[in-house]
């Protein structure tokens, strides 16, 4: 199948993976777009309420789109938002297809609900790219960090950090969303290896700091139990941190996913922890998806259905480099890997049948 065609170095990324993530060969190996560039792209997001989505959209509108326009690759991006309503997202995607977009990027949706619509798009010659999460449809191309591997790695880090024993609070994302569930599943599997660690509670932070803060506060207030560490998904760790700060309890290790705000607290309290994780850096992931999309549209022939990236740990030095000493604990930004640090073109080339620089397509 698809992953077998990757070089061994890349295949390791797929070792720990959510079993639902489709790993087959891509349906777009021999794909030719309906027409040549510039293409019209649809971005059907399911939600717009948090900083992470905002950063991702910002990457499209203020970085990727202008650059693509300059390169004559993309003419416009149509953005819709469905407020977490599947039916609405389905309708918006179909509308995009009917209105003649050349590719659709979807964001972090229900893993199965859109499958029929994706097939509909495929039949109309419109490839669908699922960004930062997977869908099970064989006609979609998924691009994301390997959230299962990330969950496992972050859980292991936390377990070590608290001395392999104690009570852990798990702050999940949006239950039911692909990346959220992959993360939780692997994280729980990893923690299960430590008999002295108990998960004392599980709350949903919805990848929104305020929600995470409220939920964790409620948990801490109504559960007098000791909490020794908090395992939280990314894009909400600052809420978790604030909840801890407010509760008046002693600070415990919390997994960091790249929010500049929480990273700032770390920068000011360097003794607190020893690592953070780029688990879903919004701009880099979007860039990854965007480049995969460009390459596919250029007919480079993706080999796999799912492009997974390993979760990258980062150190306080990287944080120091990224944000200043007098950083803002309310920042809405993210600490992200360097532009080519996430999905370098040398590696990307290995994922395509006919690799080329996506930004300088050979004239067709």
């Amino acid at each position, binding site marked *: 199948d698809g992953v077998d065609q990757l070089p061994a170095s890349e295949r390791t990324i797929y070792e720990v993976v959510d079993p639902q993530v489709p790993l087959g060969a891509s349906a777009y190996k021999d794909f030719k777009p309906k027409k040549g560039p510039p293409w019209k792209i649809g971005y059907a997001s399911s939600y717009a309420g948090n900083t992470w989505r905002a950063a991702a959209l910002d990457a499209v*509108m203020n970085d990727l789109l202008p650059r693509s326009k300059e390169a004559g690759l993309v003419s416009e991006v*149509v953005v819709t938002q469905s407020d977490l309503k599947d039916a609405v997202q*389905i309708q918006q995607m179909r509308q995009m297809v009917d209105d003649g977009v050349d590719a659709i990027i979807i964001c972090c949706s229900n893993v*199965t609900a859109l499958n*029929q*619509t994706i097939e509909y798009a495929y*039949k109309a010659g419109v490839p669908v790219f699922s960004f930062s999460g997977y869908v099970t449809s064989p006609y979609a191309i998924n691009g994301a960090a390997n959230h299962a591997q990330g969950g496992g790695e972050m859980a292991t880090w936390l377990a070590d950090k608290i001395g392999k024993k104690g009570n852990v609070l798990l702050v999940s994302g949006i239950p*039911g969303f692909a990346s959220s569930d992959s993360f939780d599943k692997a994280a729980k599997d990893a923690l299960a290896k430590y008999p002295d660690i108990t998960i004392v509670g599980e709350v949903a932070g919805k990848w929104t700091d305020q929600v995470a803060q409220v939920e964790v506060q409620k948990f801490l207030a109504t559960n007098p139990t000791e909490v020794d560490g908090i395992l939280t998904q990314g894009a909400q760790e600052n809420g978790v941190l604030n909840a801890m700060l407010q509760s008046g309890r002693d600070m415990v290790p919390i997994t960091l996913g790249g929010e500049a705000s929480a990273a700032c607290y770390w920068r000011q309290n360097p003794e607190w922890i020893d690592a953070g994780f780029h688990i879903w850096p919004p701009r880099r992931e979007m860039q990854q998806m965007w480049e995969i999309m460009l390459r596919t549209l250029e007919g480079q022939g993706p080999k796999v259905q799912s492009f997974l990236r390993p979760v990258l740990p980062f150190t306080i030095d990287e944080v120091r480099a990224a944000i200043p000493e007098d950083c803002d604990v309310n920042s809405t930004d993210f600490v992200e890997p360097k532009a080519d640090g996430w999905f370098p073109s040398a590696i990307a080339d290995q994922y395509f049948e006919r690799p080329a620089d996506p930004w300088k397509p050979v004239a067709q």
Partner: protein
Amino acid sequence: MMSATAFRQVTQDRSLFVPAGLFLVLLCAVAFRGQGLFTNNGLAGAILVATPLILTTLAITPIVMAGRGAVDLSVGPLMGFVNVTLITWLVGNGITHPVAVIAWAVGLGAAFQLVQALVIIYVRVAPIIVTLSGFLVLSGVNLMVMSRPGGVAPDWMLSWGAGTSVFSPVLLLLLGAFAIWGVLRGTMFYRNLRMTGADERMAYTSGVQVDVVRIIAHMVGGVFAGLAALSYTALISSGDPTQGSTYTLQAVTALVLGGASLSGGRGGALGSTLGAINMFLISYLLSTFNFGTVSGFVTQMAFGLILVGSLLVNVFVISRRTVA
């Protein structure tokens, strides 16, 4: 037999003016914004996406018509309940035969509504409270049955969600519901229902079996909720415990947009269908604008304003009638 009088009644029914007017306006606007909707695929998709809402709206229609302010808040979660049990309990256990699946959906919907009707009638608690309770219970139970979206619809249903042909099985579900309604409309039940909703005491003293009428109204609503769940399952080809709840507000809104009165007596399938289609068209129309980042918010605001406007116009039209 849609006789001349029935036609006259429909045209006389001022409560349809606003939804019908809004429908025409929206249709023109959509046509102006792009003809995507008026292609085979566009229509097929529209039917696919709008059917669950139309059917949930139809599901609360008889219940609201039965009066006592019986806005059925539980309808969305009920649809979700049918959806998740279908996927988890039936398909999850290898039961995928179409007859079994359809019987389950329809039967479960009707059974739940029967329970609600019995509580309303015999415990004599206000319907809105009973259905609020149903809403909370089912919203919770749905997540207990299925903690996260997933599963797959039966194979035979997968093609339903393709939405590439106007004459899809989903359309059949819709037509089936209309047929049931059409048959009922031709019987005394329909009149008894309207009279019960309009003035229950009058109906009761005139020898209408108001309790039976109420029970049937609920069960018909339950059957429609079951059909709605089938079309919804076809739409997402899977189970989703979270989406049902959002359908309650949408259905009640569509009902009111369709000119029905939440206090009973006024309303009908035609109005409800128009209301639900209007909701779809509003959302379709707004999606044709590229509002970029704020699209969701503009949609929400515009939707609210259209709702407010059409309610106000409705009041105007209807109060004109009582003056006349």
